[in-house]
């Protein structure tokens, strides 16, 4: 039996006794820790929580969570989530996936769960590489990436994951990084509180096969210049001391220097997370090469959030409505059908 005090949990209560088997130094450790802290902060009950993953390094995640969990098959976690949410809308469901799992083999399922808007928090660990299979390029690897399967450089054009998700009508789209725990926690909490599918892309360093893929965003010397932290209702500012801003020139975002150009903060682009068109523009900042001069910074935070009915609520409503108009099903009547006859 549980005692009342056992309901107050710390991050540790969400950990299992299993040894965590990611490579030492893997970005996954930080994400695991932040998820456990957020669940503790939010007071999520372990028995009412399910973590479902696909296949890949990140998909080992459920084994380390002291909740219910399924480590399923490659790319299909959204399918399992859909089935579970359809019958158990009472549970808190989290889905753990990677760039190969959800954008390559499971690409189809990802877009469909987003359009259906099942209430689930999807954490997409993006390390731009296949780690578990030891270093092939992934659908998010930049063109030219040298990997085991692309010794002369990748000739694939990479996915822009958040643009894809917005295109599939996701109702919550955010980006975070493994090396900024504070921001990651705040986004995870927001994702958890969003009703509908929350898609959080997390830049995660694979220190074995793709070390430093995101250092330009995560390391001190380049982070201020290359990243933009989105806050709803706040102007888009970045750079050392937030001295730079982004202004819209028609549909074109331009970088301004607040001091040198004498631009006032309220002349800048004010982030509105409910504006889907602007959210799409923010996802396109991705197109700029960070090494180029005057490149737009990479945005982090909540790009877009909207309320739309969930699939499971609609399903429940339809069943309720069917019972209202037809009455509770009577199995004997159903078996008899409309035309019967007697043989005596």
């Amino acid at each position, binding site marked *: *039996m*549980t005692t009342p005090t*056992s309901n107050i949990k710390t991050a540790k209560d969400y950990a299992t006794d*299993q040894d965590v088997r990611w490579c030492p130094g893997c970005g996954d450790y930080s994400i695991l820790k932040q998820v456990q802290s957020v669940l503790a902060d939010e007071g999520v009950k*372990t*028995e*009412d*929580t*399910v973590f*479902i993953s696909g*296949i890949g390094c990140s998909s080992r995640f*459920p*084994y380390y969570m*002291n*909740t*219910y*969990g*399924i*480590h*399923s*098959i490659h790319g*299909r*976690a*959204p*399918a*399992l*989530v*859909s*089935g*579970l949410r*359809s*019958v*158990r809308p*009472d*549970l808190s469901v989290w889905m753990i996936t990677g760039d190969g799992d959800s954008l390559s083999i499971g690409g*189809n*399922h990802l877009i*469909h769960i987003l359009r259906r808007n099942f209430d689930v928090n999807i954490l997409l660990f993006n390390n731009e590489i296949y780690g578990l299979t030891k270093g092939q390029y992934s659908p998010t690897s930049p063109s030219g990436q040298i990997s085991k399967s692309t010794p002369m450089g990748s000739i694939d054009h990479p996915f822009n994951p958040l643009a894809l998700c917005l295109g599939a009508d996701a109702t919550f789209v955010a980006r975070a990084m493994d090396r900024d725990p504070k921001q990651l926690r705040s986004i995870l909490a927001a994702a958890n509180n969003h009703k509908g599918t929350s898609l959080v892309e997390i830049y995660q360093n694979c220190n074995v096969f793709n070390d430093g893929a995101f250092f330009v965003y995560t390391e001190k010397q380049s982070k201020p210049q290359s990243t933009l932290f989105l806050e709803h209702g706040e102007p888009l500012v970045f750079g050392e001391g937030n001295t730079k801003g982004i202004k819209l020139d028609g549909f074109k975002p331009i970088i301004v220097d607040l001091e040198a150009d004498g631009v006032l903060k309220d002349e800048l682009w004010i982030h509105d997370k409910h504006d889907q068109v602007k959210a799409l523009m923010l996802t396109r900042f991705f197109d700029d090469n960070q090494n180029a001069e005057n490149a737009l910074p990479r945005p982090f935070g909540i790009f877009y959030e909207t309320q739309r009915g969930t699939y499971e609520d609609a*399903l429940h409503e*339809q*069943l309720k409505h*069917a*019972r209202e*108009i*037809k*009455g*509770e*099903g009577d*199995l*004997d009547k*159903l*078996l*008899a*059908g409309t*035309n*019967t*006859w*007697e*043989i*005596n």
Partner: protein
Amino acid sequence: MEKTLELKKEVTILFAGDSGDGIQLTGNQFTNTNALFGNDVSTFPNFPAEIRAPQGTVAGVSGFQLNFGSLDLFSPGDMADVLVVMNAAALKANIGNLKTGGTIIANSSGFDKKNLRLAGYGDENPLQARSLDKYRVHEIDVTKLTRSALVDSGLGTKEIDRSKNMFVLGFLYWMYSRSLETTIKFIQNKFKGKQHLIDANVKVLKAGYHYGDTSETFTSRYDVKPADLPKGTYRNVMGNQATALGIVAAAHRSNMQLLYASYPITPASDILHELARHKNFGVKTFQAEDEIAAAGAAIGASFGGALAVTASSGPGIALKTEAIGLAVMLELPMVIVNVQRGGPSTGLPTKTEQSDLFQALYGRNGEAQVVVISAHSPSHCFDAVYEACRIAVEHMTPVIFLSDGYMANGSEPWAFPKSSDLKPIKPKFAKPLENVEEKYLPYLRDEKLVREWAIPGTKTLEHRVGGLEKEKDTGNVSYDPENHEHMVKTRAAKIAKIADYIPQQTLAAGEMDGDVLVLGWGSTYGAIKTAVNELIAEGYKVAHAHLTYINPMPNNIEEVLKSFKKIIIPELNDAQMVNIIRSKFLLPAIPYNKIQGLPFTIQEIKAKVLEILNA
């Protein structure tokens, strides 16, 4: 003019026409009317894969064969007594299925120049040719008569022509002394709110009936008395419908939520359509984005404690394979329905075959045994899928339920059960641990080797499952060599043990210790049973056994097989069950195979058994 009434014991009618002629509807109406009258009926719809194949061509012919009688019937009949053809192509495609001396009822306007050319008859109208001399040919200008009947209806020619199947139906009701009542009710329901269409269709139906009465051409009518079926209340049921009802009943009797997840595919989609109509039973249907997602959703629902069912046909099952393997590893209940069709690949979507048996038994990576259960007739789909659900839930395993296009679309009278007579289904949901310090062991097993079903929301039972090999009892990931072998053997032993919880194998016809046993599975039941019964009546020592439980087989199956001198296994594939029986029991079972997308005829089975008897 005086008309004579002739008594018949059994009649086989084959309706054929363009796939847009309403042949299936006509066939179904005639079936329902006869079934309600008390005849035993058995049907075989046979249609092209194209929704509207080129009009007037042989490729576009849709057929519906119906056998009805005062006898106990198990098959839709081999050869037709009466062939109803709406055009020349329908005659060309089906004349080979008509008995010598049989009756042809032909819509003469379907034999104009264009139709003759499209059917490949050239300029010669076969209705007037000597080649049909061995049949009785009746020409009726159905198109013209229908148009005259509706001349004042205000409907356009196109709409009028669409009701010409009602004329044919009305005429046949007259010919077989049947009431129009069932079909009139059907028309009223189908066109609810469109009085002009109700009036038009009823008018044409009656016109057909009166035509029989007044036309001088037809001098005899027939009557087929009610069949001597076992006492009870009956309805008519199609296989896919019975499958859907069996699933709803299983959810109801187990007090579980139902999630039916599937992706549209011929010939399985009708199960989804039927289930989607019963949301007031709490039925949740999920049309997934693909076959894989449907299987995955079923697993997710099963993890959540619901009765989870997914369905498809062969190519779709191939896609679900990996997910079925996951369910084997997770040891979660799940029913996978395969309405088999001709393969491989896209194969023959609308034709029947039994060629997915190996797929069901072996079609997964690794040692991944599942339970395989097969239905043998339209109404038996209910019992068999109910058993599939019961075994899945009570033995925590995926179960593959095999149906096929023939029984899925065929229909027969069904003495449906009362809900209270259905065997209870008892899911073994795990209860919270009393001692919170204790560690929950999700893979601990009972005497049946079955683990508990610990569903989310239950305190103290938090646990993780996954596709990686499980450690015995704890379910933790384990790469230990001994443990892997133990788990593979245990999962197989769990399936084998189910044999202790299923009925013994009985004979469908004949007695033990005979000369020949005809062993069947699936929809070959009717043809085998009829053939064997006829041979028994002729004095032969033959018997028929039909397998419902294919994996595991009933405990006494070897004893049954070994009590016969010879075993023949007819199958609509290139020898699958026969190889299983041979390898399992080292018996020289004789294969008999047909791979034409068509069911066996009674005569084919009979001839083969006689050949073996006389060998």
